[in-house]
């Protein structure tokens, strides 16, 4: 209940305030979002497995998001143009794994 509510509040803020993303930040925000989504699904999985810890969740959420953005930023600085793909693949795989684990717990399949 609290989760859904706070998620809706966040979306409402994002839509209502419509913040302007500086063009220089544009490549990094989607990476942070990917990492954040991974953390959320990881937290959901931990919740179903009974190993959820709010400290771990909050810290992994923030650190994953910031690290993902930093990694892509460092990649462009180092001349690795397609660093986004690495991030997308890594977090994409992890999101799928988490979702698969959740599916197994929920449906036993």
């Amino acid at each position, binding site marked *: 209940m609290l989760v859904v509510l706070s998620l809706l509040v966040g979306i409402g803020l994002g*839509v209502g305030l419509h913040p302007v993303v500086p063009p220089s930040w*544009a490549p990094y925000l989607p990476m942070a979002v990917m990492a954040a989504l991974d953390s959320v699904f990881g937290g959901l999985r931990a919740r179903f497995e009974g190993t*959820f810890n709010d400290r771990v969740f909050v810290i992994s959420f923030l650190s994953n998001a910031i690290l993902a953005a930093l990694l892509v930023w460092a990649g462009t600085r180092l001349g690795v143009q397609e660093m986004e793909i690495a991030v997308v693949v890594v977090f994409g795989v992890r999101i799928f794994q988490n979702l698969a684990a959740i599916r197994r717990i929920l449906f036993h399949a």
Partner: protein
Amino acid sequence: MTDTSGGASGGGTTPRSRTRGQIAIALTLALLGFLLATQLRSQQGLAQRLSIERESDLGQILTELTARSDQLSSEIVDLRVKLAQATGSEAQQRTLITDARQQLEALQILLGLVPVKGPGIQMTFEDPKSTLGPDVLLDTVQELRDAGAEAIEISGVRVVASTAFTGPPGAIQVGRVAIPAPYQVTAIGPASTLAEAMRIPGGVVDSLAAEAGTSVRITEVSSASILHVSALPEFVHARPKTRR
């Protein structure tokens, strides 16, 4: 989510730390929602699209934008030229209008269509015995015009190009209007020149002095008014030979 997670977070869990954990989770998820909404929204902008386009696509976009920019630049030049032309023709038109207005004013005065005022002379011809014929008035008008009179009125009748002087002495008609003696003549023009023209030897004053019982009085005025106007003549027969 609240109770089970509390059990999983290890020992020493108090209701207070649980609440704090929930607040942290709520804030984190609100941040997620905020990030999601921001990102989804920003994806609609061109700058964000550009940052994920391939190099060749970017090159193509650049080419298109350059072409568009060139096109707009040449459009600006065209419009500047047009603006200059329009300004030029406007000035030309203004001159034409000024000329036409001056011409109209001159013609209006010449045809006696508007009241006029200015320096000039006023004359009164006394003719108690009805000896003066229309030729005297005609001569007077001729002399006045020769001396530079620009507008003339005789006893309330504006003298224009088509004005005729007819009738026997004592029943003179000016422009088909009978006017009784004494005849009042107002002329607008260089006052002293007009007065002098009247008094030259053999002129109007001279010839009237020869007639018994007549007299003429001449006054120079700095501001005479001719208020009577004549109707715009309608030409039935005469037509301009060339039409502009």
